[in-house]
């Protein structure tokens, strides 16, 4: 049988095409919905999207130094490193004038950047600038700029200084990312490992991972039974217990962290009790804080609610009859738990796990305070460079890598569990 499909456009009673009429009716609703979320959208854009964009740009930005020494860098590019040991005369000449006439503050900033590439640049240029200014004041014009430089300081004859220019001559540079992974550029511009003394980021990255994974696992082990209890108690009791779970949220993070120092330090409460009980001797007090152990203990406690809450919300809606049904069907309680209950809590486990892991990987205050030297995480380095060395490019690169890792985990999570399965409450 042949089915004929009417191709004529559907019309409303008034003869307007139905689709057009519908669009018109919907437009108002859409506009209203948009206006309602617009303030939040704007807020998020200004306070979240723009800073992250700025961070990502900053992590590859090398334009400042290029604006300070434009001619020098242009001439530098003409240097044939194979043929001549040192750069040609024009490079020295451009640098001479750019140092003599440049803005002092901008040069200062550029020097900081140059010092990342090779330590020693800052003092060398400062000294040199002073001498150059004297020469300019006298009104002399050097016969050879190159010799003038070398006369001022013989380091100007050291090609390794000049090689370090290599990584700065472009407006965009990946050097901060390589630095964040204990790598740098050699004179040929190839990526090489840092000196052994300066390798600390890989170690910290690995520790950050390890601590985050352990904290996630501990939170799961400790949080699962609590969430199960909360989900199965009568509402009266579970509400009371829930307050205990949420109590940490109402206490300052700093207070909780310092409380852990009081508890865990060598003359602290726990060691005191252990000595008093005779479990350990007075000389054998255990070092539990200012190391990785302290970081693990404190972070597990602080992040525990983030595991319990999603687990609780998932467990609460699993009917109690399921465990009964499984047993009724012949499964021993353990089997019933493993095959019927546990699989149904996976959305909660994965949501809690992802949440705790992502929070842990970027955690700062607690590891900073209780971590000591061995317990510091990558967040501490970001803070250090942000406040102390002012190496914002490296900060941005570290932050961007952190962001990338989180996105990878999010992607993996979505692949394996499916983001629709996430349940936070």
């Amino acid at each position, binding site marked *: 049988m042949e089915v004929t499909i009417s191709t004529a456009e559907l019309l409303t009673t008034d003869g307007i095409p139905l689709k057009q009429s519908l669009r018109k009716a919907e437009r108002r609703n859409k506009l209203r919905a948009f206006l309602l979320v617009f303030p939040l959208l704007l807020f998020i854009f200004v306070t979240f999207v723009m800073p992250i964009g700025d961070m990502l740009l900053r992590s590859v930005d090398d334009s400042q130094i290029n604006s300070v020494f434009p001619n020098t860098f242009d001439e530098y590019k003409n240097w044939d490193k194979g043929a001549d040991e040192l750069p040609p005369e024009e490079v020295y000449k451009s640098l001479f004038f750019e140092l003599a006439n440049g803005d002092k503050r901008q040069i200062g900033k550029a020097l900081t950047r140059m010092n990342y590439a090779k330590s020693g640049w800052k003092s060398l240029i400062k000294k040199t600038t002073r001498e150059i200014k004297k020469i300019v004041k006298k009104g002399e014009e050097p016969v050879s700029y190159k010799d003038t430089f070398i006369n001022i300081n013989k380091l100007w004859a050291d090609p390794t200084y000049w090689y370090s220019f290599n990584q700065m001559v472009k407006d965009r540079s990946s050097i901060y990312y390589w630095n964040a992974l204990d790598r740098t550029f050699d004179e040929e511009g190839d990526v090489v490992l840092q000196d052994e003394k300066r390798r600390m980021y890989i170690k910290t990255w690995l520790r950050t991972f390890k601590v985050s994974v352990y904290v996630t696992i501990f939170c799961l082990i400790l949080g699962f039974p609590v969430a199960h209890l909360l989900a199965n108690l009568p509402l009266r009791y579970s509400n009371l217990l829930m307050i205990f779970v949420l109590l940490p949220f109402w206490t300052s993070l700093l207070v909780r962290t310092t409380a852990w120092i009081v508890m865990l330090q060598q003359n602290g409460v726990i060691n005191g009790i252990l000595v008093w009980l005779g479990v350990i001797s007075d000389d054998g007090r255990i070092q539990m804080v200012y190391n990785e152990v302290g970081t693990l203990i404190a972070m597990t406690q602080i992040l525990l609610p983030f595991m319990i809450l999603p687990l609780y919300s998932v467990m609460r809606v699993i009917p109690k009859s399921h465990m*009964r*049904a499984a*047993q*009724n069907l*012949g499964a021993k309680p353990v089997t019933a738990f493993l095959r019927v209950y546990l699989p149904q809590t996976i959305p909660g486990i994965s949501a809690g796990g992802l949440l705790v892991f992502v929070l842990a990987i970027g955690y700062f205050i607690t590891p900073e305070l209780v971590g000591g030297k061995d317990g510091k995480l990558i967040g501490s380095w970001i803070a250090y460079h942000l406040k102390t060395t002012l190496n914002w490019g490296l900060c941005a690169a570290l932050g961007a890598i952190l962001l990338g890792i989180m996105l990878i985990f999010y992607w993996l999570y979505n692949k394996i569990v499916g983001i629709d399965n996430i349940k936070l409450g």
Partner: protein
Amino acid sequence: MNDTSQSFVKFEKIDKSYDGEVLVVKNLNLDIAKGEFVTMLGPSGSGKTTTLMMLAGFETPTNGEIFLDTKPISKIPPYEREIGMVFQNYALFPHMTVAENLSFPLEVRKISKPDIKEKVQKALDMVELGNFGTRFPAQLSGGQQQRVALARALVFEPRLVLMDEPLGALDKNLREQMQYEIKHIHDRIGITVVYVTHDQSEALTMSNRIAVFNDGVVQQLSTPDILYEKPENSFVAKFIGENNTLNGVVKEINGSSCIVDLDNNQGTIKALKINVNEVGEKTQLSIRPERVSINDGNNEENSFTGKIEELIYLGDHIRARLDVCGNNEFIVKVPNEGNFSHKEGDTLNLSWNSEDVRALDI
């Protein structure tokens, strides 16, 4: 059927209390024969679900013992009882497909893969869901989920199947259809079924026998027809079917019948003596609406008049609410034979046989 040697399930002096103060089930004695379909019927909180849970092993009796196939089962954990159960909301495992749900009880019994496959398919065919094995429960309608739950409770060939208000979540049409399906499956495979419901029509449709629960006590245990036609106390009379009541005092007892003076001098009624023992006792008389006949008023015994308070047209019959002997909730069902011409406010002559009036407790 009440012979202990024959009974397949036997509740003996079962008491159950959750808090040590209130008995949820009081001195329950119940025998169920093999292959029987027994329904526990009662209002919510009457102890029927608790009784079922004790049988399934999820609650322990406070006193007494339950025997299954002559063996006491109090010490046997639920997973070794070999009792199938259909739960109120089906309790299908949402993370497993229909086929996986059905193979679960077989897998934990370590049955071989090919056997599992065959049994699962057979069970699915039985509930007419042969092609639904790969679906997840959430992709099925309520009625289909119900059937899967039923198939899962039967697939491991349990000794006994319990059903805890299994049709409660379905709409009316589907519920009625499923009642017949469950009944047919029971007839076909002859398994013993203990069924819990608060819906009397469901109980009447499906059961061999019905135990009417109230307040933790079995009020009456009988076949559906006896329960309806010969209720032994006023609770059963009120709970099963529609019922007109008249209150009075026993005036005279003559063997199996008695004479009752209605309250407020509304007259005297001859009734069957069921749940009264002596003259002067207060009693509640029970008459089914369909046993009241409307006539010209020359019946020799139990002849009364009633004023029509309300008429409701229901197609096959007209439901008349009358004021009879001071009870203005007296219902009479008039068959729609096309010749009923009375209006509200008219007075009708009513009569009934004294065998249809039962003098019960109050």
